Structures are given as C-alpha cells and as structure tokens.
C-alpha cells in the first residue's frame, strides 16, 4: 500500500510539475497552469493551518514532558489561544492590532537590535576564527566602505575613499561578484528543479 501511495505521489508531482513548466512556454497550456497554481496556493494555505497545528503540538509535548524551558511553551500556547480568540471574535478586533503592534513588532525590533550587536561582535572576532586572506580582504573592504559611506567627525568626507574607492567597490566589484553568485544560484535552482521534475529527488516521500 505504501509503495502504491509513494508511486501515486510521484506521478501527481511529476505530471503537475511538467504541465506547470510547459505552461510557461506553450500558450495553450497556460490556462491549465494557472488552474494548477491556484490549487497549489490553496494547498499552501492548508499547509499553514497544519503548521500551526504542528507548532501547538510541539509545545504541548514539551509541557507534558516537562522539558527545560517548558514555561516559555506555556506562554506561547496562552498567547496563541488568545490571538485565535481575538481573530475569530469581531468585537475583539482592536485587541488583535494591539497584540501585533504592542507585542510582536517590539519583540522583532529588539531581535534586530541584538542582531546588529551580534554582527559587530562576529566581525571583531573574525580573524580569531578564521585568519586567512579572504578574512583580511573581507574586513578591509568593510572598513573602506564604512569609512567612505559617511562623514567622519572632524575630518569630514575622506577625499579618495568617499569619491572613488567606495563607489568603485560597491558598484563594480561587489555588483560583479554578486551577479556571479546569483548566476551560480540560478543554475543550481534550475538543476535542482529538474531533478525533482524527472523524479530523481523526491522530497514528498518514497525512495
């Protein structure tokens, strides 16, 4: 039974993928492509609900087993239920905005602030973790770009660095390098997609 199920999954995934891909190139198939894409959007919506269920289940399991940090799971489940009640009760609509603007956004902003400190710390200890030519080049570039990006107290704009070196690094060297990496990523995306399309890679189960 499992084998039949896995084979059916593969047939649906491969045929669906081929039709969507051909729909990009053949006009006659583009209508059917949109139809399949609409289905996939609905399925993605259902998957979000399944994901919320998974989040709930993971934290409930953590509380039941008394794992370390399970108090945070209690807080998470409490606010999860509170948000659900606020979403489904029209009278509590203002409260929904308060949960988002008063709790979610400030917490995310504070995480970004922590991230800024973390990045500075990582840059400082880079040479200790990895002392090679690429690290030295990385740090030198960071320093040049930072020095050229804004006026330095007392000195103001640095003549050559601000006018020529920083623009040259960011518009020529960095852009060229970024495009090279993006071309590589695009080629990787193409071959990964085709591997799944011909059924060699099956992230949906089966061998």
């Amino acid at each position, binding site marked *: 039974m499992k084998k039949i199920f896995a084979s059916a999954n593969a047939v649906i995934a491969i045929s669906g993928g081929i039709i969507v891909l051909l729909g*990009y190139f053949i006009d006659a198939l583009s209508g059917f492509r949109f139809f399949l894409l609409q289905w996939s*959007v609905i399925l993605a919506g259902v998957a979000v609900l399944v994901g919320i269920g*998974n989040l709930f289940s993971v934290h409930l399991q953590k509380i039941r087993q008394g794992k370390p940090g399970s108090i945070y799971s209690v807080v998470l489940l409490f606010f999860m239920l509170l948000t659900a009640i606020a979403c489904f009760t029209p009278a509590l609509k203002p409260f929904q905005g308060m949960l988002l603007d008063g709790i979610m956004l400030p917490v995310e902003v504070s995480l*970004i602030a922590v991230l800024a400190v973390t990045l500075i710390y990582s840059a400082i200890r880079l040479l200790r973790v990895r002392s090679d030519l690429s690290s030295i080049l990385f740090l030198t570039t960071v320093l040049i770009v930072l020095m050229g990006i804004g006026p330095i107290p007392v000195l103001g704009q640095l003549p050559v660095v601000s006018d020529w070196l920083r623009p040259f690094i960011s518009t020529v060297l960095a852009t060229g390098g970024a495009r090279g990496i993006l071309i590589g990523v695009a080629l990787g995306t193409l071959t990964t997609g085709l591997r799944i399309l011909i059924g060699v890679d099956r992230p949906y189960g089966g061998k």
Partner: protein
Amino acid sequence: MTSTGLAGLGIVVLVTILLAFLALIHRRSPFSFRSIPAFWRVRRAASLVVEDGTRLHVSLGNGSILTPAGASALAGLSLLRRLAEFTSLSDRPPIATSGTGLLNLLAQDSLRTAHDAVVIDETFDMNNARVTGFTPLAYVAGVMPAIRDEGISSNVFIGNFGPEVGLLVEAADRQNAAVVAASDSLTAQAVLFPSSSETIIGEELYAAGAYLQSGPAHAASLVVQDILRWLIIVALIVAAGLKAAGLL
C-alpha cells in the same frame, strides 16, 4: 510560442538530456570533485552525533516552496534526507525546523522515509520536524530555544535565510555546537561569512547531495552546472566583444 519561450524550452530539454546522460556516465566512471571542507565537516558531524548520543539539527529556513527561493529549501531537504539516514540509528533522532507549513510537511516526510528505511521497531515522532514561526524573526526566535534545550551538538543551516541567520549561528556558538551554514541569499551569505567557521558560498549550496553521495543524478547536476556556466561565460565574452566592435 514566442522565440523566448522556444529558447527556454530548448534549455530545459538540453539540461534534462545532459542530466540523464551524465548520470549514466557517472555510474560507469564516477566524477571527482574538488574538496569543499564544509561538506566533509557535515559528514563528520553526522558521525559524531551517532557516537556521542547527541542530536543533529537541520534548519531549512523560511523560503516558500512556491517561489524561486524554494530551490534552496529543496536542496536542504535532499541533505536532510541523507543526514537522517546517517543518524536515524542515533539515540536521539535528528530534528528539522522550518518557517513554512509546506516545507514542514516535506521535512516530516523526508525524516519519516529515512526513519522507515533504517529503524523498524520504533515509532516515528512527527514533531521531529517542526514549524517554529511564520515570519523570519519569529522563526529564528523559535529555533534558538531548540538549539539550547534539545541536546544538539551539530547544526546545519541550509535554505533561504535573511540576515537574522546570524542570531542562529550565535545561539549555536553559545552551546559550543558545530555549525555548517549555506543560503541562496547574498545578505545571509555576507552575514554567515564572519559568523560561521564553515560557510558554503554561492551555488556550493546545491552541491550538498553530490558531496554526500545522494546518487548519480546529484553528481551529474554539478557537471551540468559547470557546462552551463562555461556557456554563459563564452556568451558574455562574445556579447561584450560584439558590443565593443559596435555590432550589437
């Protein structure tokens, strides 16, 4: 069909034929690839978790499968499946975290398939693959406690991340856990370079399957990428020459 559509279809057909042909060649005489230390470290990490009874964590990021960013997540799923096969016999099975519902379903399926292939008498815990949050920062905030509390000794971050991946690397560092990280996003790569000791840059992310012996098609796809890269280089040089000569 427009000429652009025809060219696109031609490229897809050419790449598919090349993939199949090179996979056949690889079966007869395997291709050899340059050494990428990060993948060697991934294999070592997988062996270590089995030996010392700790846990491996694979973070798949929050790229939607319905967008081009999903390809990096698919490469991550392929790596997850392979690593799960290596480590399913460990006392503590691997966990996978993701930031979208679809990706989580696929991660659950990958882990279950690997579990069924290796372990017979234990039931599979679906919560080993979990969603930790639906926005990038909520996702990271949910993964950090897992890194701290679940006895994880090795972390593989592979998929679509933003700069917030720096927080994950920092959380793993605090636990003295090994980190191998790869992302298709340039911003994340820039953050990972100073933060992590083993960063996989650019398209090396898609080479994971080939370096972990996931099959001939993975090795063939690396060679196809190289062939296409050379074709693009030649096309760029020719186009630049023609432009300089005033013919384009």
